[in-house]
């Protein structure tokens, strides 16, 4: 079963444990500046929204790459950057409509979420369940259930 990161901003407290976990996994250092997931805060923190790559099936970044450095990991569904091939041209950063692939000037390559090879550390670190890693075909399950409850007034399951 393929899985996806499912993000529920309502549960996010903006603690940034996800950003630290991401940078630690990929760079070996606690460093939100190098995180591939970012939490955005609005209105003095009344809303906090974690945001990262959704791993598009027909990924703009993949199609834009002139050297085919971005390929799909068949096991996880993640679009992954092959650093040995990437030439740092940044065309993918222009092509991505969501801004979730970015250039890292330290390495001269682009970086993006790779789902940590199937064990995403942001979801592991999130203390509130705002980021979970679940069935890629049912990312709407929770919302669907909430809508059903709203429509029929049943008590939601745990």
């Amino acid at each position: 079963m393929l899985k996806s990161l499912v993000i529920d901003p309502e549960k996010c407290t903006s603690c940034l444990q996800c950003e630290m976990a991401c940078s630690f996994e990929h760079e070996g250092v606690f460093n939100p500046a190098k995180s591939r997931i970012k939490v955005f805060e609005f209105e003095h923190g009344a809303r906090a929204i974690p945001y990262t790559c959704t791993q598009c099936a027909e990924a703009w970044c993949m199609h834009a790459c002139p050297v085919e450095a971005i390929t799909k990991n068949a096991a996880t569904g993640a679009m992954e950057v092959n650093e040995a091939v990437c030439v740092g041209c940044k065309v993918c950063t222009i092509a991505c409509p969501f801004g979730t692939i970015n250039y890292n000037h330290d390495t001269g390559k682009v970086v993006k979420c790779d789902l940590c090879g199937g064990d995403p550390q942001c979801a592991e670190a999130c203390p509130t369940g705002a980021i979970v890693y679940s069935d890629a075909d049912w990312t709407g399950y929770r919302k669907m259930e909430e809508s059903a409850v709203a429509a029929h007034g049943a008590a939601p399951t745990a």
Partner: protein
Amino acid sequence: MSWQGKVLRVNLTDGTSVAEPLNMDWANDYLGERGLASKYLMEMMDPKADAMSPENVLIFATGPLTGTMASTSGRYAVVTKGPLTHAIACSNSGGKFGAELKFAGYDLLILEGKSPQPVYLHIVDDSVEILPADEIWGTTVWNSEAWIKAKHQNPLLKVASIGEAGEKGVRYACVVNDLHRAAGRSGVGAVMGSKNLKAVAVHGTVGVKVKDHKAFMEAVKKTKKLLEESDGRKELTELGTNAMIDAMQEFGGLPTRNFQEVQFEGTDKINPAAMAKVHADGHKNLLTNKACFGCTIACGRIAHIDKNHFTIVNRPQYRHASGGLEYETAYAFGPVVGVDDIDALTFAGYLMNEHGMDPISFGATLSAAMELFELGVITEEDTDGIPLNFGSAEALTVMAEKTGKYEGFGQILGLGSKLMCEKYGRPELSMTVKGQEFAGYDSRALQGMGLGYATSNRGACHLKHDVFAEDMEDQSGQGKAKPCKESQDKVAAVDSSGLCLFTTAAWGLPEFAAQLDAACEGEWTEARLKEIGERVWNLERQFNLAAGLTAADDTLPPRMLEVPAPSGTAKGKVNELSVMLPEYYKLRGWTEAGVPTKETLQRLGLS
């Protein structure tokens, strides 16, 4: 490792800055944050220097665990000599600024001298600029933060700044970071203002490494789980610190109308239930909870004000969410001034953050002014025509704004309660220790809290000791000195680690030691942390003694020592400081005059 090993020193007089290696001998003896900054302060300045003079030194300090995955790793402290107490001031804050300073590569930021013109610091890793602040001088914290981010086109900057209160020398002005987190107490913002420093803006890309990654992540996982499962943590997450208001109301330890009473009839209107109540029009004060950097507790509250409330009905600029009531703000704008209007309390909280003031000191000072007013010592002629009666939401919000802008009677309130009450010839009405106002706990009901207030090195404070369990159990002074002394040392070690005191809801020193041992060079044990805590406490004491304070300053106002509590579980009791203090001095290894003996200093390596 875990320390960055680097200190940024900025001389504001000359406009120069230099990065120096961290003194690792001191880091090993004082750990970080509060302890380490106190050591630097002691070595760098004459404790007798005027707090508002260029000779004072202002230090922003992170701890070794700041900016790591340890829960609550967003803490930093501002350490300096305080203008409210003329003693060492150590004010601790969360938010995201502290971790960002660490990510830029610095353990400490040390500010010396005084800039000839208003300036702000712009730090991105090794790049340090001292830039003109003319365009934001005279404006609020909120404006300054937005202006700096826009100016540098960098939304990733984290900003700590002062408002007009800090510029104009309100003695309890604070440093506010990330819009509504603050190094709140003891007037550290006034010191920043006296140096003509408006703000520090920082972005860091260096990150933080630890000694043993695997061991550290294991320790972090274990301690996070303990925290997750603890009842104290659950209460903080669900209700916030204001859960305390119901407990104190029931117990009879809730300071009301300048400590004339210990229970408040309006508690139900400002407690967590009132914050969560949905009104007929759908309005609800509380919107959500919010975490500081790295925090898996998230005790912070985000609230908003009813758009039809008198405070903002004609001021649409305040129709946004911001920091909501925590226990100390609820106490300071509620019972102690007799106000039960939750929107007025929330608005006063906005004003504190916007203008950069300590809500505890402001509320307690206003409550003393209200007592002076009701006694007829001051009249509407003194108070710009505003009747300062207990219970007046208008007096609360108007005076909060006047003090924030340093206008009219706000200039008098800006002196703090001690100087204000002395000015009007009624010093006994000031509910302070060493010039700093009490937090929201009455020391007749909570005896050990009274000893903690009396002996705290930064003046009256509820956060430098933890005798709460013992205080709730029995209401005599017997047996309180030992837990007070021991918890003071423990808290000093916790503060020096770079983590939040609220983790002690689930963790003891062994949990801190486990995380530090995996993160930092050397061996870190519970025993070592205890010794560091005691060393830090005694160093702060040495600073204060050198500054001219004496045992006579370790006392409580006559209302606590002579006037019995009028109701509650402590009805008829006064604080038994005279029982506790001599025992405390003895346990500390101090003389009867409150001076550490030669043996004590030698034992702690402080001679």
